[in-house]
């Protein structure tokens, strides 16, 4: 075999480990789940083709689907802006060039490492429960706290708080973005006599939009997919009164509680389409508000 004919083969050989993983563990199951979404499948007997029935039922005859959709949207709409604002605020404070920046950065990043874990979700229950830490502190001030987790009015908010608390990774990215803004832009503005506020809104924020955009898309996708906290905090019920029934949690219940794999696959694909539509929308509108330097 000539050298020229041999070399592409060698290339594919090197590609193989990744290719096997991608086809076997990502693309294969993805396509299979698309197929399953058109079937009725309980894991015990083979899938039965039902056409669009799962999707029709989702949108026309499933109150829980709409309830879970509502919970997830409220969660996304509340947690993403709060988390990003918080991350940006802390990043700006750290960017002022305080002593021991690496230490603070590590400390503030810590919740992001821990946040998605089961242990933290359990900790959250301890903090926000009827006899939790939060109420103990409030009691010191003579305030009788609610049972935050078991009151449907507040339960979702405790999960929003948990999400916002994990502001570390967008914060790190904001910090890097702030460092990218050339100091002479600020110097030019300060020679013009611009106030801090004016500099922030007219220089910093616009120049940070590529990073804001990135964080916004990533965090929104993450928020749509949020699962662990709701699962642990409500013991997998989505309660009280479906107030923390995240879309992913409902999907999980259908798949592994009721063994309706076909229906759960349809739920998963609807979420995928929602996320894809949102992302496409974000990219389409980005050219009106995201400023790229070059």
């Amino acid at each position: 075999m000539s050298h020229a004919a041999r070399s592409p083969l060698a290339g594919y050989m090197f590609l193989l480990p990744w290719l096997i993983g991608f086809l076997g563990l990502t693309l294969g199951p993805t396509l299979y789940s698309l197929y399953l979404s058109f079937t009725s499948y309980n894991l015990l007997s083979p899938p039965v083709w039902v056409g669009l029935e799962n999707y029709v039922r989702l949108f026309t005859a499933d109150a829980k689907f709409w309830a879970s959709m509502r919970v997830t949207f409220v969660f996304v709409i509340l947690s993403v802006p709060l988390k990003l604002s918080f991350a940006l605020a802390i990043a700006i404070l750290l960017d002022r060039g305080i002593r021991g920046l690496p230490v603070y950065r590590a400390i503030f990043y810590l919740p992001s490492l821990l946040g998605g874990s089961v242990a933290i979700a359990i900790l959250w229950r301890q903090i926000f429960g009827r006899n939790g830490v939060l109420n103990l502190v409030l009691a010191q001030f003579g305030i009788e706290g609610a049972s935050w987790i078991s009151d449907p009015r507040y339960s979702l908010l405790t999960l929003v708080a948990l999400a916002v608390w994990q502001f570390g990774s967008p914060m790190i990215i904001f910090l890097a973005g702030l460092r990218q803004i050339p100091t002479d832009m600020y110097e030019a503005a300060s020679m013009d006599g611009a106030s801090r506020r004016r500099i922030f809104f007219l220089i910093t924020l616009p120049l940070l939009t590529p990073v804001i955009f990135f964080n916004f898309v990533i965090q929104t996708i993450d928020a749509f997919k949020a699962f662990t906290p709701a699962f642990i905090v409500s013991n997998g019920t989505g309660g009280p009164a479906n107030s923390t029934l995240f879309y992913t949690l409902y999907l999980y219940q259908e798949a592994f509680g009721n063994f309706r794999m076909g229906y759960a696959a349809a739920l998963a694909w609807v979420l995928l389409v929602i996320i894809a539509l949102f992302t496409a929308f974000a990219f389409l509108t980005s050219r009106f508000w995201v400023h790229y330097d070059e």
Partner: protein
Amino acid sequence: MTLPTSSAAALELTNICKSYGDVPIIHGIDLAIKPGSFVVFVGPSGCGKSTLLRMIAGLEPITSGDLVIDGQRMNEAPASRRGIAMVFQSYALYPHMDVYQNLSFGLETAKMRKAEIAERVSRAAKILKIEPLLRRKPRQLSGGQRQRVAIGRAIVREPRLFLFDEPLSNLDAELRVQMRVEISNLHRDLGTTMIYVTHDQVEAMTMADQIVVLNGGRVEQTGSPLDLYNYPRNLFVAAFIGSPRMNIFPTSALSEGIAGDFATTHSLGVRPEHLVAGPADVGLGSIAVEVVEHLGDVTILHGRLPNSHHGVTVTLSGQVEIKPGATLPIGVSRSNLHRFDRGGLRINDGAKL
């Protein structure tokens, strides 16, 4: 225009010092700048010229000394109160704003009336010939156009003092020459005092009324371009001003007959363009030519002195037929000799200051 009293200076620096922690960077600079003049700070990188400019601008705190602008001490005044506009090396244009917004930003910050802003912007745009570009973003502009916008942003503020921090260093050679002329024209038209920082002695020589040569945080010499060229006060200025640089010969490198004439002199400086082929007041012997550069208008020879083999550069006018390996007798007129003592300071004689 002659304004002899120091109080009439547009800018006056008295014993200005700058340290970062315990490390002194600028060692007591005294300088008076006449209104309307074009002053160039020139020096090698790290000489403190940009730091000095930034202290004048108010971007860098002054450790000690006095900064007086138009008779007012301004050490602590914030940058925006000093009546100064600065053109940055990177231009520092706001990438998310179009040219008009870039030009008007400072005026809007100062809460000027819309009509006046529009008038000032259009006047500046006209001066700089960037009127068709007002709605473009900086990324849609060429390097030269960005440079103009950066200057425009300074012009609209109608400052009493312009500062330029190596403004041409990001442009290609051809554009640099063109912008040099334009900035000089701009200075003539506006008549405002300008301070210009560069490491390029050609820019300094071509643009300045007054050059301040800085080295290691000290002023080596201040004077008009020709003063510096004709009467460099020390070896540093002698070598820094002029291209190709001045030949500096230790007297020990010269043949005995010549060295004997200059007993008190430690080194002799001769500019390449003052060396002549053939007989002259002071003959330096026949050099061995190593490299010949034909530039068309001049021919530059690099060679070695006889005996000491000390390197020498000779610029001969016109196109001279000579090959590497040849020998050429060279000499210099006595009036074109620069003499320096052991400490590198100029030795004044009757002919030269």
